[in-house]
């Protein structure tokens, strides 16, 4: 081998300039999209809420009652006790997000599902569950198929008879009492069990009872504060009681975090105190386009009076339908692929097929819904059912892919342990794999649902109406959705008043819903990841 004659005189000079410039260029590129979006969001929020139209006194009052105390308390807490700070802030966030979703739920009970009907179905569910439990417990000797058929008969029978029976009762209690029993009580039971998990049976019962009483009082106290009984009951059961229960549960488990509640109290007192003070002093708030009128009225040809109410209700119904269809199907497919599927050509084909389906444009899914549901199955265009089914097909690949990831993260040793105890495959999946993977599956499903409620094109394809003046009343009525309404305003009614008032307001509502869903998913994921480490 010939020797090289190169002589190295020194190591040369290494400049750090290129590296430094490169690094900051990369950082700038990373931030470009985020900053651009943030600026656009600021613009649209400014157009929708118009904070500068408020009285300076209004800003000053809220600055003094809300901003200053909150900043003071949080900076103190953040320096001395970051864990408590995070706890207090999370309670505030939880309360805000859950109140928003409770508002949507209240809308369903006010305008779509009367509480009596809901009560009937819950009663039917309870009776059929009780029947199934009785069959499972007392008739171990019956063969499985016989038990399965009997349970099925009880469930079908209960749902066929009970709701009608309840509705035909001549006298029934007021709506808020029905909701307290059928909606608030189950939530209070779950929350109470969590809050008083270590307090023994008596303590748990007391906690549950306190929750139910609090929810029941909502129907009485709400009207005094200007909230009608049904929304008051729903907000108490979905927002106030769960948040209070969560806070109580955490404080019982980690008493040191108690000081975080000071932050929550300061924020709440500041917000309500500020509102009362502004009212008493007569300072006018901003002339926001996102106001009560916008949230509760229907479309109008006049941008000032246009509202989003039917679209919000449609989005909620679509979301429920999509979740009900895509969650079981997606998780089912993921379970098959991860737990059952043999490693053969067919499985690999399904695998490739799913990743390709995830890349199919959403308009094509819309065409699929149009051709299959409308042309071939003869369904009417633009209903909740076919809209929900089309969107469910659209997000199914995303749900499957994320659910598979969650299932894959369950360690194999846990499965082996379960098989070692003599469990069958289904028992292992039900008792070991699914509970462990559940938070991950939930995160993926929430993110996918966020994608579904932001979709417009498939809804246009299946013929959802651009303008709708009333809420859909069932699965077969026409549906609009928030993004669809925004699109209609931005393109079909394209004019300056709509661009300046209705569209920004619609965009802000849509984004607030979406961002809070995403943040719930991200918080869940972070919590889950830190728990499993």
């Amino acid at each position: 081998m010939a020797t090289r004659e190169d002589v190295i005189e020194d190591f040369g000079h290494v400049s750090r300039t290129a590296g430094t410039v490169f690094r900051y260029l990369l950082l700038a590129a990373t931030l470009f999209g985020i900053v651009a979006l943030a600026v656009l969001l600021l613009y649209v929020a400014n157009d929708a809420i118009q904070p500068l139209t408020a009285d300076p006194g209004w800003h000053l009052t809220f600055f003094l009652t809300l901003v200053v105390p909150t900043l003071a308390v949080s900076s103190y807490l953040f320096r001395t006790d970051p864990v408590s700070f995070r706890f207090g802030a999370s309670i505030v966030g939880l309360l805000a997000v859950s109140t928003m979703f409770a508002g949507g739920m209240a809308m369903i009970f006010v305008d779509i599902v009367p509480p009596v009907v809901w009560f009937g179905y819950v009663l039917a569910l309870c009776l059929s569950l009780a029947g199934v439990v009785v069959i499972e417990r007392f008739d171990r000797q019956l063969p499985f198929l016989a038990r399965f058929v009997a349970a099925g008969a009880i469930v079908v029978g209960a749902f066929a008879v009970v709701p009608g029976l309840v509705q035909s009762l001549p006298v029934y209690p007021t709506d808020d009492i029905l909701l307290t029993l059928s909606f608030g009580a189950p939530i209070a039971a779950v929350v109470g069990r969590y809050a008083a998990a270590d307090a023994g049976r008596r303590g748990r019962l007391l906690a549950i009872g306190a929750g139910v009483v609090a929810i029941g009082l909502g129907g009485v106290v709400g009207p005094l504060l200007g909230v009608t009984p049904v929304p008051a009951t729903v907000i108490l059961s979905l927002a106030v009681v769960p948040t209070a229960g969560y806070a109580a549960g955490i404080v019982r488990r980690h008493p040191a975090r108690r000081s975080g509640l000071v932050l929550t109290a300061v924020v709440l007192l500041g917000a309500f105190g500020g509102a009362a003070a502004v009212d008493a002093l007569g300072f006018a708030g901003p002339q926001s386009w996102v106001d009560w009128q916008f949230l509760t009225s229907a479309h109008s040809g006049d941008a000032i009076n246009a509202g989003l109410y039917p679209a919000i209700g449609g989005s909620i119904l679509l979301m429920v339908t999509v979740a009900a269809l895509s969650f079981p199907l997606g998780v089912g497919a993921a379970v098959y692929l991860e737990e059952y599927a043999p490693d053969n050509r067919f499985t690999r084909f399904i695998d490739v097929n799913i990743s390709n389906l995830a890349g199919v444009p959403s308009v094509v899914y819309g065409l699929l819904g149009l051709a299959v549901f409308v042309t071939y199955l003869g369904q009417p265009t633009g209903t909740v059912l076919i809209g929900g089914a089309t969107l469910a097909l659209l997000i199914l690949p995303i749900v499957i892919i994320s659910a598979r990831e969650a299932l894959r993260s369950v360690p194999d040793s846990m499965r082996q342990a379960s098989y070692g105890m003599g469990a069958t495959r289904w028992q292992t999946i039900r008792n070991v794999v699914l509970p462990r993977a559940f938070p991950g599956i939930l995160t993926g499903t929430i993110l996918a649902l966020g994608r579904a409620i932001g979709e417009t094109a498939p809804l246009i394809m299946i013929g959802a109406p651009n303008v709708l003046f009333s809420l859909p009343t069932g699965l077969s009525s026409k549906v609009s959705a928030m993004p669809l309404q925004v699109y209609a305003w931005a393109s079909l009614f394209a004019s300056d008043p709509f661009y300046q008032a209705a569209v920004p307001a619609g965009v802000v509502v849509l984004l607030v819903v979406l961002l809070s869903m995403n943040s719930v998913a991200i918080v869940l994921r972070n919590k889950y990841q830190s728990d499993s480490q």
Partner: protein
Amino acid sequence: MSTDDITRDLTRRTENSPRELLTRSFFFLCAVLSIVTTVSIILMLTTEAAKFFSVTAPLMGIEGPTASVVDFFTGTEWVINNEQFGVLPLVSATLAVTIGSAVVAIPLGVATAIYLSEYASSRAQRVLKPALEVLAGVPTVVYGFFAVVYITPALKTVIPGLGTFNMLSASIVVGIMIIPMVASISEDAMSAVPDSLRQAGYGMGATKFDVSVGIVVPASLSGIFSSFILALSRAIGETMAVTVAAGSQANLLNPLNPTAYLEGALPMTAAMVNLLTGDVTGGGVAYRSLFAIGLTLFVITLIMNIISDLVAQRYREEY
């Protein structure tokens, strides 16, 4: 309990008991649904598009106006009222949006991926990654509104000749939308490059810059390319942003000519939405042209997805 029971319980074959069979077949059916979806997409698009073309329409038992295949793929006019169905203007507009968004998203996305995988602390990653996810999570109709109401007027102060609806701002928002896709897939590929390669680089006296550009990027090139193709296929299928921002006037433009971006055009997806929001009655030839465009779009995105898969698998460096 007698011993017989225990023997029976212990020797029972559980794999094919009714309960196991029932659950297993349910899960199997869920998985098969994805194949049913694909098959019905393909069947639906081909049969409905077949009713549109005059070559195949008689086979489907369709009478009335149809369009010839040659005219569809080579025609340069898209005027529904005159029954002129030339898809080229739509394809050229789609191509323009794709190229324009690639110019925005590819450099920014790759730079983001390099920053996240090589430079960012884990703390910065925890903040930046969810923030980037938000970019992809904003509904596309909102991006369209941003393009028309905020970006176009801002650009007009720099470029006076810009139309109210133009391809430039449509491309910019679609580009911003697909940055996270380029970034996250490329970053996965870069994170998969083993640390030993980086250490070897440092051992040779390379700076962080040299290692990033000279080692990590070449080693993850297949992943980066596959992220480009996936993101561009997403840009091609992107609907609402271009429908709102690009206007509704179909015209044939040259995507490589920068001045073409100053005016509006009608990409394929926007044409489909316009067909349905306009006065198209079900069953007419215009209605069936919807499926012909849909088929074109589906085939293009499918081919791109498959190529991306192949690139990622065939050229992946195994470490």
